[in-house]
């Protein structure tokens, strides 16, 4: 079997074998190795953030808490949020999966700026180190939103300065990734590949890149000003020095709301790829899906004030923000219905990535639709800062983004590692994750409507049932994720060798070997139509799918 698989690998040694030792990884310019390093770093962060979450959930088993003190609880939810957002959800899909896939889908040898790509990884690592340093320095209890005056009081200690520095570095890492992808998509498309021949994952990453480049500098400015305010008392955000704390909220959400679209747009891109390939049908409404990504990116800049409906901002500002926020529902609806239409009369294959995507439809449906309650002024006033918000953004950011991340990870896993994961383990993980996720977060909608504010270490006893269901769900969710991790990890040892094209996909990355050689393609490919499945034929499990007429 091994000799046979070696033949499938093709003549050039795969990127995994090209160069040995730690140096050949840590100093590599190869987008594929950088992607793998990102993937490992990000998965480590997920585990860390997940452990925090489980301790939080255990503490909420009883209304009076008791497992940890209020202060420790407050630090845990802060670090859970900060680690998950800055070290997983924002970089996750673009940096880990995008880095691997973008040049391959374009038919290119690498990204436009390979050295910048490595710099981006090291900035990310530096940011992560600062987060760990924050933890060592005693942690911070400000919430990931870092609202002053609370966050910039002297008594918050050294931790807040370390955390701000970490966020600053992570922001630059994100900007560099965005710059790289935009330049790569502009300049490095295979000959004959027009803009409307791009796989939709690339349109999604392009829209993401726009947000990263335009919004993330504002995050850097904001945390920089926060740092200066804390050290030099400039009088920007702190009332005691003559500043305005609400100004910080404007700055913060000017980045952090578009950041939500940095998270969800790449996820939508993965869904577009997977739903088409596993329905064996061209994506429905390609141009509408592509343009709705751009529309979300653009409108997403103008909705930040919906986080501040009860902060005392002017009523008219709130009205305008509410209107623009609700408009985001339209491109989201367009995407959803186009995905569903893609499945119509298809030949739907229930492989693991597709199962994840099917659960994505339900989860994103709930996450998106509950956003309507929060974008609408009258209903946001009571729901703001309650568990309804917690449940809503977990449906979007954890449910939808993580589900799509896992779909993409399973989908591209054979390409990244050259191994096929076990379908039974994969599909089990998808269903267990879905059940655990729903059980964790659906009760939180009800708790929020009934009036349980978020960030509460203790709660009124009427919410005991909600919280206990959530806690049980969180452990089911965690076990689902461990099953997924186990399935993928064990495939590295015992998985079957993957053919170049195990799924019968039509985009260019599946014409390269699995795993690809150092320079991706033996000969530079020409552009193809990424959703044209005609002529693809399943030869055998070992040889995968082959396009008739090719070779």
């Amino acid at each position, binding site marked *: 079997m091994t000799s046979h698989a070696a033949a499938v690998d093709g003549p050039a040694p795969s990127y995994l074998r090209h160069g040995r030792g730690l140096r050949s990884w840590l100093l590599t310019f190869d987008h594929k190795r950088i992607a793998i390093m990102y993937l490992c770093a990000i998965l480590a962060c997920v585990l860390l953030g997940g452990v925090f979450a489980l301790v939080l959930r255990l503490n909420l088993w009883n209304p009076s808490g008791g497992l940890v003190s209020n202060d420790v609880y407050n630090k845990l939810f802060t670090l859970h949020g900060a680690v998950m957002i800055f070290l997983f959800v924002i970089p996750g899909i673009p940096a880990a999966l995008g880095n691997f896939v973008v040049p391959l889908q374009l038919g290119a040898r690498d990204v436009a700026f390979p050295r910048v790509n490595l710099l981006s990884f090291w900035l990310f690592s530096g940011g992560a180190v600062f987060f760990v340093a924050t933890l060592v320095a005693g942690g911070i209890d400000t919430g990931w939103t870092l609202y002053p005056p*609370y966050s910039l009081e002297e008594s918050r200690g050294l931790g807040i300065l370390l955390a701000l520095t970490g966020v600053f570095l992570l922001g630059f890492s994100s900007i560099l990734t965005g710059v790289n992808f935009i330049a790569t998509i502009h300049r490095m498309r295979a000959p004959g590949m027009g803009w409307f021949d791009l796989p939709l994952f690339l349109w999604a990453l392009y829209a993401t890149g726009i947000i990263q480049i335009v919004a993330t500098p504002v995050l850097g400015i904001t945390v920089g000003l926060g740092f200066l305010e804390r050290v030099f008392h400039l009088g920007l955000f702190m009332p005691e020095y003559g500043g305005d*704390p*609400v100004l910080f909220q404007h700055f913060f959400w000017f980045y952090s709301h578009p950041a939500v679209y940095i998270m969800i747009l790449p996820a939508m891109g993965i869904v577009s790829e997977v739903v088409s390939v596993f329905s064996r049908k061209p994506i429905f409404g390609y141009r*509408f899906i592509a343009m709705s990504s751009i529309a979300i990116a653009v409108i997403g800049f103008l909705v930040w004030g919906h986080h501040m409906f009860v*902060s005392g901002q002017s009523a008219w500002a709130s009205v305008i923000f509410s209107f623009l926020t609700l408009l985001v529902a*339209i491109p989201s609806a367009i995407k959803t219905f186009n995905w569903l239409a893609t499945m119509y009369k298809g030949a739907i294959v229930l492989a693991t990535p597709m199962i994840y995507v099917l659960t994505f439809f339900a989860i994103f449906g709930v996450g998106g639709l509950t956003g309507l309650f929060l974008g609408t*002024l009258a209903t946001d006033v009571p729901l703001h800062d309650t568990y309804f918000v917690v449940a809503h953004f977990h449906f979007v950011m954890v449910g939808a983004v993580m589900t799509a991340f896992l779909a993409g990870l399973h989908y591209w896993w054979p390409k990244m590692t050259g191994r096929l994961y076990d379908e039974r383990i994969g599909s089990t993980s998808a269903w267990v994750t879905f059940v655990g996720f729903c059980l964790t977060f659906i009760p939180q909608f009800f708790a929020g409507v009934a009036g349980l504010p978020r960030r509460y270490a203790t709660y009124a006893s009427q919410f005991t049932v909600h919280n206990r269901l959530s806690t049980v769900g969180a452990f089911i969710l965690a076990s689902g994720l461990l099953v997924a991790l186990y399935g993928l990890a064990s495939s590295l040892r015992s998985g079957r060798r993957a053919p170049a094209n195990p799924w019968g996909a039509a985009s260019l990355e599946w014409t390269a070997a699995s795993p690809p050689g150092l320079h991706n393609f033996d000969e530079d490919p020409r552009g193809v139509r990424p959703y044209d499945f005609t002529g693809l034929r399943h030869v055998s499990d070992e040889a995968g799918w082959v396009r008739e007429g090719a070779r």
Partner: protein
Amino acid sequence: MTRPPLEPLQALIAATPGFMPARATSAAAGVDQIFAFIFWVSAFFLALIVAITVLFVVRYRRRPGRMEPEPTADHDTRLELLWTFIPLALVFAMFAMSTRAYFRMTSPEASTASPLKVSVTGKRWSWWFDHPNGKGAPELHLVKDRPTELVLASTDVIHSLYVPEFRLKQDAVPGRFTRMFFTPTLAGTFPVLCAEYCGTDHSRMAAQVVVHADQASFDAWARQGVDAGASLVEVGRRVFTQRGCAACHSLDGTRRVGPSVKGIWGHEVNLVDGSTVKVDEDYVRESILKPGARVVAGFPNVMPPAALEERDLQGIVAYIQSMGETP
């Protein structure tokens, strides 16, 4: 001539799910109606998405005998327009309904009854409520069916006053005043929560609001053990005297270095830059903390800023207010 069966439809979209808290203010019914509308629209679309997904997976699953998809069009502009404009229309409806309700929720009620005005102070980790007769208390007392105005301040970090049964919430932001307007419609006792994270005991920063069935009941409560020293006006008079404010700001209308405080409350005054400003809580606060920001026309900009405690600031405001609105 037949009428479209709108009434059952309206009843359906106004049917609130059964898990909402009691409705205890004038705002609650409007909020719940919009909640119900969005809820049923969302439920419909979620059911639609899930039903289509399940149906397609069952019918079009790849299986022996159905290995290839059936050819269909890969785009259809009419369908795209359909699922662009139906959601758009629904979103417009939500926006229109909610904006009307929102302005009602956040503006003073056009009512002949004089509003009950309570100063609310949030601090880590408790609330303090100064009622109009001067009675301060750790719980909020209101009167059923009497329009109410809360003026919120914070002495340290941002807090947020939240009463689930009222369907209302408002941040208390240090350095400025924020307001809530509503009319309680249900007598009883409800929890007051803090909804903006404020540190260690955020989850225990709770108080109660007692809505009295009538004014007499409120008055009876308000007379119990009133300590004259606790009144905001008293606090203001003491601060005004101790700080020597009267040296420049007379109490009887006499013109000195600065404007007199007699009878200025609620009036528009002319500023040196030609604009005008209404003398309200925010202007008085600003004039104490940053006196040079908006100087009254005809007076020099010479006053030093005074860094007063939050309660003292509120006292000054109440004191100036007590000096009447007619010069």
